[in-house]
């Protein structure tokens, strides 16, 4: 796989006065310095010809906050589209740190995007006819189904499929990916259907299609049904019943357990972590047809990953959560929030070590993955100790590249089933042949 890192750092310290003024004016409306913060660093990774963007977590809930259209084929397009991805939004009034503010908004491009956003916000203030515009429909449906998040989910499912110790079956792989994608679209649409008034009140989610009245709730439900039913049917009939059952269960877990629970108890985070862990398990069961230890391990890795990812993100959203009535650890049990994040960073190290024991990967995997696991654990520890905005941001951003990298390393250290049969040499001659067969 290829890695493309696109790092944008703001190095400028000085900010012209009118620029700050411009940003303040823009901030009244939609964006805050947090937005620019996230523009600071964008990561694009290319993994096995899939393009996976990590921009926002699925929660908020699991939510992911994504606005614009997406097409994940071309990297360039991806870079441009990543920009408007909604990250954490917070009212400017909360932050007292003007220095931080100056630091964030210095890049020249930001001036341009601020102007663009101001124009967008002006358009937002107009009255719009509630008529379904057919040419907007693809974009609207993409946002309704949180297409970027869906793409990530499909990537993790593909990773599960790829890691399974069976010969690669392209048809099965495509059917499983499509089915998972459709199931994810359905789940996300229902989630948005349930959360309209709450989404309106949170900065991160207030531009969703149902909130803006671009689509009626009835249509959203019909869309969800028309994605979910074929998706699950495809998985059950085209792949195997176990994968179909897991898909249906995951939809149920996300829409009927996680979404209502977000407003009832902090336990929602654990449920959400399970929701995130199931897709790779589905990928594995699609390939092998059974729930092996390997599937559970992959699920476990993704389960543990959710915590540093989400807890770090939610740290910056406390005001919106509190006002909107969401029960999140970061608001009610901040100490627990950070402890859990750290705990699961360390768990990732443990889980990576178990992989070779279960014959999923060679012993090079825990060794190669140790640096990145240690790094995220270090950031988790900093977050635990410092409990401030900057450490939470660092941890969140780290989680964005950590997962694709971990999965990539895992895949490259995969123990080929051929190698397992000829228990002889693990790394030399056979490796080359095994590699050929492994890669599609």
């Amino acid at each position, binding site marked *: 796989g290829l890695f493309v890192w696109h790092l944008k750092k703001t190095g400028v310290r000085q900010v012209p006065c009118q620029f700050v003024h411009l940003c303040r004016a823009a901030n009244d409306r939609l964006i805050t310095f947090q937005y620019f913060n996230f523009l600071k660093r964008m990561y694009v990774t290319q993994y096995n010809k899939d393009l996976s963007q990590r921009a926002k977590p699925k929660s908020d809930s699991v939510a992911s906050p994504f606005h614009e259209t997406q097409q994940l084929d071309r990297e360039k397009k991806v870079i441009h589209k990543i920009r408007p991805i909604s990250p954490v939004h917070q009212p400017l*009034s*909360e*932050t*007292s*740190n003007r220095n931080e503010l100056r630091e964030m908004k210095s890049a020249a491009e930001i001036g341009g995007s601020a102007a663009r956003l101001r124009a967008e916000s002006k358009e*937002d*203030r*107009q*009255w*719009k*006819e*509630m*008529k379904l515009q057919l040419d907007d429909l693809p974009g609207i449906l993409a946002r309704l189904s949180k297409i970027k998040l869906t793409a990530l989910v499909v990537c993790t499912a593909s990773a599960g499929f790829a890691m399974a110790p069976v010969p690669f079956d392209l048809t099965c792989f495509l059917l499983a990916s499509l089915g998972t994608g459709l199931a994810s679209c359905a789940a996300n649409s229902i989630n948005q*259907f*349930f959360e*309209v*008034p709450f989404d*309106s*009140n949170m900065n991160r989610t*207030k531009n969703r299609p149902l*909130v*803006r*009245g671009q689509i*009626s*709730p*009835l249509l959203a*439900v019909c869309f969800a049904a028309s994605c979910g039913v074929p998706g699950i049917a495809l998985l059950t009939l085209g792949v195997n019943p176990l994968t179909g059952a897991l898909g249906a269960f995951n939809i149920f877990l996300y829409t009927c357990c996680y979404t*209502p629970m977000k*407003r*009832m108890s902090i336990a929602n985070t654990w449920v959400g972590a399970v929701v995130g862990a199931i897709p790779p398990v589905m990928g594995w069961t699609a390939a092998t047809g059974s729930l092996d230890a390997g599937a559970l391990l992959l699920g476990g890795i993704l389960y543990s990953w959710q915590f540093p990812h989400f807890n770090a993100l939610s740290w*910056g959203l*406390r*005001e919106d*959560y*509190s*006002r909107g*009535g*969401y*029960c999140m650890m970061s*608001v*009610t049990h*901040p100490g627990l929030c950070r402890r859990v994040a750290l705990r699961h960073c360390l768990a990732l190290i443990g889980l990576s070590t178990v992989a070779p024991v279960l014959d999923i990967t060679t012993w090079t995997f825990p060794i190669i993955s140790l640096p990145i696991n240690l790094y995220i654990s270090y950031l988790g520890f900093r977050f635990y100790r410092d*409990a*401030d*905005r900057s450490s939470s941001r660092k941890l969140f951003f780290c989680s964005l590249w950590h997962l694709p990298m971990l999965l990539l390393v895992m895949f490259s250290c995969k123990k080929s089933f051929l190698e397992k049969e000829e228990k002889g040499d693990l790394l030399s001659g056979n490796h080359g042949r095994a590699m050929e067969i492994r890669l599609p």
Partner: protein
Amino acid sequence: PPAHSCNDWIGPPDKYSNLRPVIFYVPKDESPLERRLREMRQETQAWNQQFWAKQNVAFQQEKEEFIYSRLKAKGLEVRDETGQKATLNAEEMADFYKDFLSKNFRKHMHYNRDWYKRNFTITFLMGQVALMRALTWLRWKKKDVGN
């Protein structure tokens, strides 16, 4: 919205509730079912508006009070030399957020339950109306073909 329009119109977010108001179109030949749907949507809109406006205003107010009391406790002024309002950092505000959330928990529970009920009812009614309109249109088409 223009007078000749036959659709609902949705406006910009309300200043207090952040919800977007909808102006509903009343067709001349509105059926009882359609009227029920429209009235339900109007009522829900008003109910939602009231809840969130109250909620957000209370939040802002309590937040100001909290900041004021904390600043006082620290011996600082509400406004510094340049006339800007002094604010507390995120960690200090965390206590307030936690407090506000727990105080409003029961209110949110009731609201959630009501909201889910209303949402389902409205969507179900929408489905019924859509079905009814489709059947009417089919019947009209058949009559048209017959003629």
